[in-house]
């Protein structure tokens, strides 16, 4: 790894909260409002870090550990995610296994922490969380397998380098399908519409938000930052497939990637403005559908 391979990590750390700002702005525009400042998430984080905390008597150290483990794991994962064709800080064959594993760890402790409160609402959220993620996992893996087989590479960095080069013209259907699947995974994993509505006000309909109801102060800050990073990383994954970057100038390339990233945020915003959350019973079909799409792509690579 060279100095450049710090770039994806640094960008993720610095810019990821901005994505929420962009998304909210987009939604505000669609709603015809001015909306909150782009940097709102940063302000929130700062504010929360200054605050004290309230803990439920029911809870134990698990509840306090949840956000910390979550953030630590996500930060580690961030070191594994390249951007454009800048390789990630830590890149090795099958590094995506560790990446997915760390996300799993985050989920495990978020869920456990939610259950620690003994609140039925958070239990419900936890239940849905594991339900949906259990279904997204195969889709994600099949997509990764497709990319790996298509490019003959086993590390995210090399996969991106390979897939975003001259390959597009040859096997765009494969990449397109994979991208779609990954996009659904992204929406599901980050609790965005149409899977989950981040800013609903009825706990019964929430998934991710309801799990963190009882967190406050720095813990909540960690949680927000965690989800921002998560969004960024999965976004990077989708972009890695979609952005056809001329292998030439890496900086141009990076610029495209960043543009893509915020474009993605805009798209999410648009999606959230134009469609409503799916009924919970429909969501599994969406996720399984994503898996199916990914499988089709995989089969195409097997020709």
């Amino acid at each position: 790894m060279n100095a450049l391979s710090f770039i994806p990590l640094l960008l993720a750390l610095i810019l990821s909260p901005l994505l929420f700002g962009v998304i909210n702005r987009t939604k505000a525009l669609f709603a015809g409002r001015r909306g909150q400042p782009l940097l709102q998430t940063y302000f929130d984080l700062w504010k929360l870090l200054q605050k004290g905390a309230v803990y439920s008597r029911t809870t134990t150290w698990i509840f306090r550990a949840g956000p910390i483990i979550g953030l630590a794991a996500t930060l580690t994962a961030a070191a594994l995610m390249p951007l454009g064709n800048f390789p990630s800080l830590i890149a090795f064959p099958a590094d995506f296994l560790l990446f997915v594993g760390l996300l799993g760890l985050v989920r495990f402790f978020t869920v456990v922490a939610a259950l620690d409160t003994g609140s039925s609402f958070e239990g419900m959220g936890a239940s849905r969380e594991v339900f949906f993620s259990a279904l997204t996992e195969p889709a994600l893996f099949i997509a990764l397998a497709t990319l790996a087989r298509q490019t003959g590479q086993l590390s995210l960095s090399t996969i991106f380098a390979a897939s975003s080069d001259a390959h597009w013209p040859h096997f765009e259907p494969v990449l397109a399908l994979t991208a779609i699947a990954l996009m659904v995974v992204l929406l599901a994993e980050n609790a965005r519409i149409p899977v989950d509505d981040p800013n609903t006000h009825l706990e019964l309909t929430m998934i991710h938000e309801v799990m963190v109801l009882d967190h406050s102060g720095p813990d909540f800050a960690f949680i927000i930052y965690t989800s921002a990073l998560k969004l960024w990383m999965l976004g990077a994954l989708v972009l890695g497939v979609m952005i056809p970057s001329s292998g030439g100038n890496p900086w141009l390339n990076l610029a495209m990637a960043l543009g893509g990233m915020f474009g993605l945020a805009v798209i999410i915003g648009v999606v959230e403005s134009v469609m409503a959350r799916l009924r919970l019973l429909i969501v599994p079909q969406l996720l399984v559908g994503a898996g199916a799409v990914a499988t089709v792509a995989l089969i195409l690579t097997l020709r």
Partner: protein
Amino acid sequence: MTLLLFAMAILPLGAVVVLLSSRSDRNLSWFGAGSVVIAAVLGCIPAVQVLLGGAAVQLRFPWSMPFGEFFIELDPLSAWFLLPTLLLSALSAVYGVGYMRTWQGRRSLGPSWFFYCLLVLGMMLVLLARNAVLFLIAWELMALASFFLVTFEHERESVREAGWIYLVATHLGTAFLLAFFLLLARETGSMDFTVWAAKGVQAHELAGILFLLAVVGFGTKAGFMPFHVWLPEAHPAAPSHVSALMSGVMIKTGIYGLLRAFTFLGAPPLWWGWVLIGIGLTSGVLGVLFALAQHDLKRLLAYHSVENIGIIALGLGVGLLGVSTSSPVLIVLGFGGALLHVVNHALFKGLLFLGAGAVLHGTGTREIDHLGGLLKRMPWTAVTFLIGAVAISGLPPLNGFVSEFLIFLGAFKGGISTGGAIAVPLFALIAGLALIGGLAVACFTKAFGIVFLGEPRSERVLHAHEVDWTMRLPMLILAAGCVLIGLFAPVVVGSLKTVLKSVTGLQPEIVTENLATAMNPLSFVVIGAVAFLMLLALLVLLRRDLLARRRVETDVTWGCGYVQPTARMQYTASSFAQPLTDLFRPLLGTKKKVTLPSGIFPPEAALKTMTPDVSHEEMYRPMFSRVNEWLSQLRWLQHGNVQLYVLYIAATLIVLLVWKFR
């Protein structure tokens, strides 16, 4: 080798002494456990030596028994299985001392410890025997001893039922093994494993038959679906330290047998790999799904054994595909992953069963929905159980991740480079293993979260107590094992070299170079893990620093506006798992009994779910009753009428005469 003999001599001696000592003897348990521990220590030394590249040691005594010979050998494969076996035997024994204290005085513990020692002896002999007769005797000894351990609480109907199912299953499995061994013996004209390995089987269809016999025979012990029916019955019925031993290592003797069998059967055709991957996926996915649907903590764990055996089978399948396509990387990663998972599963499943035992010991119930909030009352048990839960979910940085990483890596490496015949099963494996992982997380967040977190769901929990050190220590050691293997993954994987060499018969350097393809990624994984832990520490400090200057209050859980939350309002295990069990209802056949609230002031509302084992209900029960009906047709033979009886005799005579003289 002499050490091994000593170990094997101590066990029966200890057993007999324990059996003969008076039932009121308080040190009886210590004596039984002690002899197991000593035997384990003695046995581990040679095993380690062999694994560190020492030469395999043989020992043959004449044994006055037709076709029998007391021929034992400690080669790397045996050693690899022997090590966890002895370790877990010793730890469970120590745990058992505390666990069995409940029955002290009410019940003579002599027999229990007697059979415990015999079980350990049986497992050792199974792993070491190189003569078919000796192997079978040891195999049956193992089954019989564990049967008596399972039926320790035989005054309970359910336990007796479980014992019956267990012994029947394992014995029918043995029937297939008999056919397997005798067929081999007929082909090679010997009962000697070394001869079998040397000669191998030439005829292909014969090898196929043998393979299937072995899969059924050994698979029954290992718990492959659909031969797994005895696990969910026997494991909950047995005392917890026994469940730990059985689920942790005893079922692995089935895997060992399978691996040993592969060394006899010559070059495998592709379909063997497909069969194993198929079995692995079925066992893995269905195992974890059934686990998700259980309310009984130990039953849940039992189904997870099925799941993990499935994962091991996947590894073996990858390895076999590698052998039949002679691609060393698949061989090494597949078999390596399987072998490593054997050890890992022994550690975390042992740990989890001991934890479940501690919960049972402390609260007197295995019903997940009656528990809750135990973390405050049983901190040690809780922490170790959590470690086990994370490990079995295959999450970094613990050991479960490492072995699954190997299998995944193998599948990916094979998948990206090969043609459909191999790539398709491998990709199926990847998708399946991913699904298994996701479901496992669901299942163990449920198990840990509902049992140890939240508020107590029944007054049973209120006077729960932490277990004493004899039970705590083993759990701690096992938990430490899970962490260490996770953090020293490359080293551990490196130690696979000798055993892989002896299983696959590849050149050492080939093994080494292919192991390297797994070892340097793993070293990065370790770097990641370390980074993670350091960040963790940093964040802890940061948080403490932030909160130091701020107000930190405690209050009731936010009830979304509801002011008087009670423990009974909490989410239960059934409701937690409900979305998934609903989705997979077709596979699970979960039965639901709902009493919806009705009226303005609903008097009652209830939800009962139960998930009986499908293959037990749909396959074996009908099969048995069919055979039963079919055979009861013969009842009229014994009609009670003497004239009829004489008629049979006359008829027999006449028929024979006519048949032979026509």
